[in-house]
């Protein structure tokens, strides 16, 4: 192989392929985990505010010109903070419709972290920081390189491993805390571990590629319609669908026009109609 070809394949395309599959798998599987844990097929990393929280953390990192690993840690802290606040709100407000309150709390907290991101963009250096932040926030794998992979892949591997090990317990959590406890599950501990695993993956994905919405909502939803609710099957199918989907969409984003389209924009354009269709369809399936 010639030297330029080697450089293109190994240093540019290959890391990007790995990043796309890892990010897609991470977002889809963390979405599946959040949906089971919160007993709500309508939640996802973006709806729960985790993506916005992680993005805020990462933007703080970029703003302070921190090293890559520190940016990822900041993203994780932001993501955990967001999901903790959202869950806290949903627990504190014991309304009639717990699912609705959870989703609304996620939207509200997501907006708050979004405002924080807006403030940092306003304050950022317009010559080099602002374009970097803006481009990254739209969601893109164009800048994916081997160094990104060294922090993305281990985080996704750890998260997936935890979810895979706990897959049978995660099923029991969909019954609700009381019933799960009566079946012998330490619900508080399990919830903390599963949220940590899912948020770790989401944060690593956000730190690597910005906010790529809808994957975490639509892919596990679709997977559940196809193969049922059991997490033993849901997790691998979500991982495969998520990885394949994002790889395909990234390829389209890269090749569709003369300039590259932002990945997050494309997933939103595809995800919105698919989600609306699912909403109508799953109402007939009587479980939304």
């Amino acid at each position, binding site marked *: 192989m010639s030297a330029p070809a080697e450089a293109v394949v190994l240093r540019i395309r290959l890391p990007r392929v790995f990043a796309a599959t890892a990010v897609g798998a991470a977002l889809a599987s963390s979405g599946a985990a959040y949906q089971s844990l919160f007993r709500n097929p309508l939640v996802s990393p973006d709806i729960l505010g985790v993506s916005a929280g992680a993005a805020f953390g990462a933007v703080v990192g970029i703003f302070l010109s921190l090293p890559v690993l520190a940016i990822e840690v900041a993203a994780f802290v932001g993501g955990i903070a967001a999901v903790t606040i959202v869950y806290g709100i949903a627990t504190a407000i014991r309304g009639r419709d717990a699912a609705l309150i959870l989703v609304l709390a996620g939207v509200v907290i997501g907006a708050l972290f979004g405002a924080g991101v807006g403030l940092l963009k306003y304050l950022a250096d317009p010559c080099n920081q602002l374009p970097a932040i803006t481009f990254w926030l739209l969601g893109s794998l164009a800048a994916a390189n081997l160094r990104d992979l060294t922090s993305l892949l281990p985080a996704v591997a750890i998260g997936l491993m935890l979810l895979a090990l706990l897959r049978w317990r995660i099923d*029991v959590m969909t019954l609700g805390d009381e019933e799960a406890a009566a079946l012998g599950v330490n619900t508080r501990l399990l919830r903390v571990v599963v949220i940590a695993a899912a948020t770790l993956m989401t944060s690593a994905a956000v730190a690597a590629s910005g906010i790529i919405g809808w994957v975490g909502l639509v892919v596990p939803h679709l997977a559940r319609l196809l193969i049922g609710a059991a997490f033993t099957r849901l997790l691998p199918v979500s991982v495969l669908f998520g990885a394949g989907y994002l790889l395909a969409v990234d390829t389209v984003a890269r090749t569709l026009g003369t300039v590259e389209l932002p990945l997050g924009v494309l997933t939103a354009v595809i995800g919105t109609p698919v989600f609306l269709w699912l909403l109508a369809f799953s109402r007939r399936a009587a479980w939304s």
Partner: protein
Amino acid sequence: MVLNEPRLRIEDLSYGYPGNVVGRHVSFSVGVGEVLCLLGRNGEGKSTLFKTILGLLPPRAGVVRVDGGLTTGWSVRRRALTFGYVPQTGGGAFPFTVAELVLMGRTAHRGPFSAPSIADRRAADEAIATLGIGHLAQREWLRVSGGERQLALVARALAQEPRILVLDEPTASLDFGNQVRVLEAIRSLAESRGLTVLLSTHHPEQAFACADRVAVLAGGELLEIGPPVEVITSDTLRRCYAVEVAVLPVANDRHRVCVPRSYLS
């Protein structure tokens, strides 16, 4: 196990939520293989009492003993290996199959990371067979009827292989035939496996059909406890439900029928 200790003993138990104690100073015990049926009007706190016994709610006062030992401080796993619980409404809203749901009853029998073993699957299959719902096993849980869901929840509790079975109104959503079948299944489990059963119901007649003793809750206290023929009288039912009921004999002396007096006039 201490000799002559009942399987389950409730001592001076007060139960409820912070700032809202719904029942006070309730004491009773249930032996091995005994079925105790709990009666009480809506809002009397039967479910709250059950959840307190199961350890899902902390007792406001008093203790729960199993085989003489205090259950205070037990792990959720130990509780789940001791108590099987059939909630009034349960099963969640995710599209599991009935077999998958019953298999969840085996959760406490394995470690947090383990998959169900062959023994787990066999226990779940047996529980499904015992309740006679084999034809539903591969059906989606959300697509079977309310009565069939209840049978699946009972099967799940059986798969748990508990020593004590707690059922919160297990016949509430069942048709007449399924009511009879569930009560007969409960009765025969108590007799054949020595299972201790605690259940609540809104139908006093069911107590005659399945219970060794019946406990009546009224005003947050234990009004009466004893064999059904002694406890279920016009007087007790009036004090419990505030209606006039005739308790009439049938061909055998174990059973009675309860008919509101207004129907007879």
